[in-house]
């Protein structure tokens, strides 16, 4: 018999070790090993001049970027990243929550593997048809607007999982 909790625990420990090795903490304690990495000088310098930085960036992201422009860019970047992650991670969370139980739910409702496959394919087919133009529409119609649209549509999809509830309402 497979002990899923045990495997989860072991894999988690492995993951923590690898993630620690990849993190900035490792770089702090063992700086020699990462001397060729260019992304870990976040807190080294205060911004000196922002005028110089713009012209640097215009020239392209050459390796000659100064430490000052790096620091200013790092601040802009971390603000941007924070904003992005809040929204994106909630979206991903709602997607992952459904992942493990979609098949199991359809199975519990009593559908066969073939019927479940048809449902899955319908989802993929719809994402193929809409996906072929929805990205272009978002480029022109505004990506933020389409992210909000995402939340509304996925919420509706969630509610249809209570199939019998819907039947009573209709």
């Amino acid at each position, binding site marked *: 018999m497979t002990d899923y909790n045990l495997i989860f625990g072991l894999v988690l420990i492995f993951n923590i070790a690898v*993630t620690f090795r990849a993190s900035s903490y490792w770089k702090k304690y063992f700086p020699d090993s990462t001397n060729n990495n260019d992304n870990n000088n976040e807190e080294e310098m205060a911004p000196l001049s922002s005028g110089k930085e713009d012209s640097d960036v215009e020239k392209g992201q050459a390796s000659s970027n100064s430490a000052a422009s790096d620091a200013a860019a790092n601040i802009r970047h971390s603000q941007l990243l924070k904003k992005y992650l809040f929204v994106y991670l909630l979206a991903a969370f709602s997607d992952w929550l*459904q992942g493990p139980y979609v098949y199991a739910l359809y199975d519990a409702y009593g559908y066969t593997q073939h019927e479940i496959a048809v449902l899955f394919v319908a989802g993929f087919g719809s994402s193929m048809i809409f996906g072929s133009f929805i990205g272009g529409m978002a480029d022109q119609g505004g990506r933020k607007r389409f992210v909000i649209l995402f939340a509304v549509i996925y919420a509706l999809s969630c509610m249809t999982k209570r199939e019998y*509830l819907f039947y009573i309402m209709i």
Partner: protein
Amino acid sequence: MYTNCIIHILDFKSFSILMLGRLLGGVATSLLFSVFEAWLIGAHSSANVMSHLGKSFSMAQYGNSIVAILAGQIANKAAEYKEFKPASEGSGFYTGGYLGPFDVSLLALIVCGCLAFTLWEENYGEASGNDNASDDGKKTSASSALKGAFSATIRSPDILSCGIISSLFEGSMYIFVFMWTPALTTLAKEEMGDSFEGLPFGVIFSTFMVCCMAGSSIFSIAMEKMKPEQLAVIVFGVAACAFLMVICTGSATSSFLAMNLFEMCVGMYFPSMGTMKGMIVPEDKRAAIYNLFRIPLNFIVLFSLLTDLTPKVSFILCCSMMGVATVLQMKLKARRIQCV
């Protein structure tokens, strides 16, 4: 007799409602996989921090993995919280059980929409963000955006290989997403016989996601010494081996471990491919090209699921697709390194 009849009518009606849910879900996932990324790259471009793009992708992937691990465990709890049963005797309205995770998901989506509304600023594809071109931008239809994306893809062998490789990899990933539940259930039933009482799907899923996160960390470590083009060759090779292991072993435990190895490749794949696509695909057509990439992907999924392949045959298919991806990636790597 009477209730049986009712249930048959309900079955047909409820199947079409589940179908509607899947169709809406398909629209939502196509948005999730293209528009968020497009917004991020656009925002990097306007903040002049394009050089940080690789870091952003790996951060987003870290966060995504942590959220996925939590989501698996929370879904497991939510599914075990209440028994799956009709709300009242004879009622068709089910409650609890496997519906629990979907309720939590609904809540998260509401908060997500509100946060996007308050925190984000609007951004557009570069071509239509330009003031002078905004009139033309409105006239340009979505289908011409797709045509532009198509011709750009056909003209560049690098964009084309990127598209084929990501379709092959993500194709096997979606086959895996569908097949892991029946594959592990079948193996567990064989081994446990009558004592089988269902599997902790949330915990299994959560373990996959831990591996995915480990893969993401391995990507960061590998980037100290390698280019993403080189790492991707290894990723596809190992993924092919993982599928070979799933095909060859008969026990639930070793299959599960091999599946975890594949999930580790998934974790390395996303930041590698994200970085490669960031460098190879032109910014103004980005979202359209990414969706173009999804077309062959969906044909792979359509074919493999509708033909009612057994889990074993579909894993053989995945294994061979990973073999092809390895070869194509080796060619792409050779071209890219020649250019530099």
